């Protein structure tokens, strides 16, 4: 493989999106709840609430949803949310997984979009169905069996994106902690590429390794981390999409930071 550290475009900036919307050359997906979407949204965007997707995220079902949103193999897709990019990431990742390559995240949240006074709309666009092919990208998905199979490999880095205290209390053995808050900048869902690279470089998280991200339940926070890694050129990355919730349900082994009462330092 030649291009492990070549950065991939994972976000679309505000200006570009606005002109793509004007040119009608993009499909914008709003992943917020239906009620929020109905109230207002980015003009011409379609609604795919994360919950709708998660109710059945088998490849066949996802393909149907994608078709119904008028997306074919060539359609550029931009996804946004109002939860610091985490829900949008989970949806974008799912599109990638079934084989859609041109999908990016809006660089900011809907809340910020609005507070910048940018255009919004409450109309739901008319969409005609399209035919997307199925080209499953299993290499970006990690399962619990897969995690078990690589646990002794030292060229695999497992990253836990939950908050630090949750990590200290319990995590998958061998995982390192990178709370999702670390990934954002003060005004964007992801920090600048240089910042992100420096952070990973300090941690010795590099393109020489395969990287797997996970979080608490459905792969949202870790979905954001998946894109953060990609933006820094670390494309050999998988998402453990069922994450820690499944791991615990399966009663797999966990590790804990012992002999310290860190919870009592929290003012929550």
């Amino acid at each position: 493989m030649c291009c492990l550290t070549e950065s991939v475009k994972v976000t679309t900036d505000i200006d570009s999106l606005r002109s793509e919307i004007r040119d009608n050359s993009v499909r914008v997906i709003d992943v917020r709840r239906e009620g929020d979407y109905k109230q207002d949204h980015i003009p011409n965007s379609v609604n795919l609430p994360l919950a709708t997707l998660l109710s059945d995220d088998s490849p066949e079902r996802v393909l149907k949803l994608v078709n119904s949103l008028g997306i074919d193999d060539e359609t550029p897709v931009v996804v946004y949310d109002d939860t610091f990019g985490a829900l949008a990431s989970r949806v974008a990742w799912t599109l990638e997984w079934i084989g859609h390559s041109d999908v990016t995240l809006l660089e900011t949240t809907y809340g910020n979009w609005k507070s910048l006074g940018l255009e919004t709309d409450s109309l739901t666009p008319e969409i005609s169905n399209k035919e997307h092919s199925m080209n499953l990208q299993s290499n970006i998905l990690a399962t619990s069996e897969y995690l078990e199979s690589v646990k002794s490999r030292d060229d695999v880095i497992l990253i836990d994106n939950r908050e630090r205290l949750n990590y200290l209390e319990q995590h998958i053995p061998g995982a390192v902690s990178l709370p999702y808050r670390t990934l954002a900048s003060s005004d964007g869902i992801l920090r600048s590429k240089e910042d992100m690279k420096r952070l990973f470089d300090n941690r010795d998280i590099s393109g020489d390794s395969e990287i797997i991200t996970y979080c608490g339940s459905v792969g949202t926070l870790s979905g954001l981390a998946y894109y953060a890694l990609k933006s820094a050129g670390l494309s050999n990355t998988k998402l453990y999409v069922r994450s820690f919730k499944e791991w615990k349900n399966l009663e797999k082994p966990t590790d804990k930071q012992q002999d310290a009462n860190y919870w009592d330092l929290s003012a929550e």
Partner: protein
Amino acid sequence: MSISKLTPSSVDSAKPKINWARIDEADNFANTVKLYRQGKYDEDSFRRFRLQHGAYGTRMTSDYAMVRVKLPAGEIYPKQFETLSRLSEQYSIGSAHFSTRENIQLHWVILEDVSEIFRSLAEVGLTSREACGNSVRNVMCSPLSGVCSDEKFDSTPYALATAKFFLRNPMAQSLPRKFKFNFTCCEKHGMVRMVDVGLIPEIQQINGSKQKGFKIFLGGGLGNRSFVGHQLEDFTPEEDLLYTSIAVMRIFDRLGDRKNLARNRMRYLVNDMGWEKFQNLVLKERAIVRATQSVVTKLKVDTTPDKITRPLKISDEGGSSVPDGYARWLKSNTIKQKQSDYRSVFITLEAGDITSNQLNSMAALIREFSSEGKARSGFVQNVALRYVHEDDLVKLYSRLLETGLAKSGGLTMTAPVGCSGTTSCNLALTNSHRLAKEIQRKFLELKLDEDDDLADSSIKISGCPNSCAQHGIATIGFFGGGGRLGKDMYPNYQMSLGGRFDADTTLGQTCLRVPAKRVIPVILKIIELFKANKQSDDTLKSWIHRIVNDSEDSDIKSIGDIKKVLEPLVAPPTKEDDPDFYLDYGSDTSYHTKTGKGECAA
């Protein structure tokens, strides 16, 4: 269009006067950590380097650090609060911690991320450089300096200038041990006798003109053995402030014990040598310093007064309704300033802990309510919002209620100090941190903050004999250890009574050992004894003071008498009868003492 250009940036009325940071230290730290991880840096030199940069080790692990950010003279500005808020979420546990020495600490930080914190701190002019290690630690100043009605003048500019002078100064990079300066406003509000160099501002008439200067106290300090500082001379004029500081540090540097780490603070040197001899040495050394350095070396004291502007009209929506608890809070958390119409408001935390949301709120509250546009951290793990106009207090209180920062009792015994203990410290034997929180919750529930008799007392709890919570100078002080019944261990505290840190600074006297789960009932029992035996104008503090000085003639005459009453309360039950007794606060596994390598002497 970039987002940041569009985001409205808030305009602050006050900006930091001094930039404490150096951005290149972030890169340097990152690189050194890499070399260390690659085994190219030995353990000892790396530890020295890490501590010099303000990163402490963490309990039972070498993966994490605690970053201690200095707030020289306690000053902190809105933008700095916002940065700390973000950093606490990104690299720490979503909370930060105000310490007893005007530092703010981020715990459980991954060592490899520390340099990222430095980078962000540098953007707002803050540093953790020399917050640990054998250097001049954060220079403290009373949170009331500049507003205290008993002060001779505001010592804040002198504290800042002293901090600036010694930070990164070659003469202060490898002292025998840490070295601390405390400036204060007046006798009552400072802690000048429990520190290497303590300073009280003083004015003298010299040849008919008023001359600013200080009363300087040397060689005090708390620890495994504690000592009270000695006053150097009647009056030290301000020109001599720097020469005196340099002289003292040179002597310490030359003669301090570099071998025996357990007794190398300057107080041991003073004690071993005897005060008079030490005093003479300082005066002689100062003459030399004065003669040799007078031309080049000067403190840059910036005494331009701060701009005091009441923030733009605070809206009075919500009418004039006064929330419940306001009077209680006003009395126990605010102090009238010497400037008429203004108060300083003390915000009480639980053992110094503050969430990232609250840190953000602090920035907003300063902008909305403080006429000086900044805040000051205090001595008891708290933070003060000063120059709040009397007319804005009700509104401020409502805002504090919304953010969970409105706890009352801030200036009373109900706000105990608790060191980190087993939450993060390698040397801890007990969870002193959580115990402090438990006491505060219980005492506020009992409304003890409303009891005037208890207001001037203090409770301080350390998790081991090292005194980080300054238990030795508390009215009721505790330090942690293990107790044992048969083969079963339980968390235990040594209790001392009658310590104080005012003009009559003394260390408390040992009373008895109190199991962790009996600390609250024992304190309540002491209060009960006091109520039964007090004279009409007594406070708990004055009553205990008489007892430790053998001048009390009620039924309770001595520490021994108190001990006798308390003994039945502290007898350990068997594990079968009371399993909870054997668990420390915050822990559901059986108690055992476990410690790692301490770094206090590093």
